């Protein structure tokens, strides 16, 4: 770890330092800036969350008052409930869609490359674009419902976008469309790395395709499944742009999510202390997902290292 300094004998340390100054700067300045901003900005936001700051940050200490105020607000409660529903529905459905797509693509079909590109292209587009487009398609007066009405089926109803109870599902739909391809890419890589010898042995034993998937292939995919779920959860927790463009939290505050609450408190209501508290709560939700995952990865690695 410390083999960096290969000082040649006879050369004074000071001139050596000057000579190597450019490389020290190039190594340390970017890394230090990056690391320092991550640590100090997190602590800074944490500190603001304990102060009575409103329009501008001020010093002072209010203990957990900002946290209790945020947790007691209807806005946050709806956002949190929505996150639970959106997070679980989106993660399960996009993982399932991705797995089905991967299995279908893995059947040695023609045009696999084209199909894969089709399922992955939404990932190259911004959530603002995705949200805007789906807000048109799902708008009952403009999109799918209007089309079906124009075709003659006038009692057809698909108005989730303006339905308080169902609006959150429009975000689930758009999010699945946008990111199932990601799950597909990871699952496909997993399917391709299943040991060919095991499959051959099972075939010789007379296992059919259904049995093969159930007994051998799918069980070997579960580490990848956990990775997919964690990454999609991480995305769900910080979802902002998609909702902003699709429903803007509406109708009313029916599709509010934590990231929107943070933005609203910080920049629309100028309640910096509460906004910071909401941001810290978001981080805690994220840690509740990531820390068990990190622990699991650690155990996996140790087990792999020790055979």
């Amino acid at each position, binding site marked *: *770890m410390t083999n960096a300094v290969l000082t040649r004998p006879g050369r004074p340390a000071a001139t050596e330092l000057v000579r190597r100054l*450019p490389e020290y700067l190039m190594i340390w300045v970017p890394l230090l800036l*990056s690391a320092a901003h991550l640590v100090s900005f997190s602590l800074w936001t944490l500190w603001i969350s304990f102060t009575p700051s409103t329009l501008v940050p001020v010093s002072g200490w209010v203990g957990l008052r900002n946290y209790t105020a945020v947790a007691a607000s209807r806005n946050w409660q709806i956002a949190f409930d929505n996150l639970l529903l959106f997070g679980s529905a989106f993660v399960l459905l996009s993982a399932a869609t991705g797995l089905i797509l991967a299995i*279908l693509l893995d059947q040695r079909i023609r045009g696999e490359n084209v199909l894969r590109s089709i399922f992955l292209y939404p990932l190259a*587009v911004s959530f603002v674009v995705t949200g805007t487009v789906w807000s048109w398609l799902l708008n009952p007066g403009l999109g799918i419902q209007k089309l079906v009405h124009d075709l003659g089926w006038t009692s057809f109803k698909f108005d989730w976008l303006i339905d308080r109870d169902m609006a959150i599902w429009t975000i689930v739909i758009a999010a699945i469309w946008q990111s199932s391809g990601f799950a597909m890419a990871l699952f496909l890589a997993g399917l391709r790395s299943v040991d060919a010898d095991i499959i051959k042995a099972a075939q010789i034993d007379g296992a059919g395709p259904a049995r093969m998937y159930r007994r051998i292939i799918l069980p070997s995919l579960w580490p990848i499944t956990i990775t997919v779920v964690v990454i999609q959860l991480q995305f769900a927790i910080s979802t902002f742009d998609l909702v902003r*463009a699709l429903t803007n939290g509406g109708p009313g505050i029916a599709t509010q999510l934590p990231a929107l609450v943070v933005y609203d408190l910080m920049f629309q209501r100028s309640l910096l202390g509460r906004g910071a508290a909401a941001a810290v709560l978001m981080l805690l939700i994220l840690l509740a997902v990531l820390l068990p995952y990190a622990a699991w990865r650690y155990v996996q690695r140790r087990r792999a290292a020790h055979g």
Partner: protein
Amino acid sequence: MADRNFAPSRILIYLAVSLIAVAWLAPLVVVVLNSLRSNEEIAHASMIGWPQQWAWSNYAAAWSGFCVAETCAGIQPYMLNSALVTIPATIFSTMLGAIAGYAVSLWRFRGDNWIYGIVTLGLFLPQQMRLLPWTIVLRDIGLINTLTGLVLIHTIQGLSFTTLFCRNYYVAIPHELIRAARIDGAGFFRIFWRIILPLSGPILIVTVIWQFTHIWNEFLYGVTFTTGQQQPVTAALIALSAAVADIPQHGVQSAAVIIAALPTLLIYLLGGKYFVRGLTAGAVK
């Protein structure tokens, strides 16, 4: 084996993938078609339909005509803003990330594991935890509401990704190569230029595509730290839909959406392989 392609199960598989592929393409097709229909035509029918007359003028209006607030310059100035943020920030973060990744993986120095560990935490830390500090810092150094400010943010934040990508690629390079070069008297920069950089082609493409796509598509920082004429195109699209909410111009809006999505879509079409590699490389961290 010849009849395998005609077995009923094969037909079902092809039917299923084709149907899903159509569903995945439908939103894009709908918007492309709408961008070629007049606002009136869409208002009379629905968003989903074939153009009666090809309204190519939507693109001219979207590019340089429509109004957001008092300015009527179309989407063009915001596209320029996005380009002026995305291109420098992509170049800086990739360059610095390559050097940092090289230093951390092959050069090694005291504390390298520690600082690398902290830097990669940036992959997970929500943007919301950095919004207020960035606002204060940008205001203090006079870069609030400037494109330079956004370049600075995206460069520093992008380092977490670019360092990780490059480091994971460089650890596979044999250390003996570096050791031999150092014995020959080559320094940090000479080894980087002569040995590392020529080997870096694939990872630099992955990193550039990843950074470009992410910065171009970023919205939260754009809408928080810039206003009006300084906003990137993602923020301008939201401002546009809000501005025309009373009298929607769906034809022109669709053209604006297509224009805004075009740079990243083109990059995806041209470098899809590298795009996917970045996607999965980020996942297997």
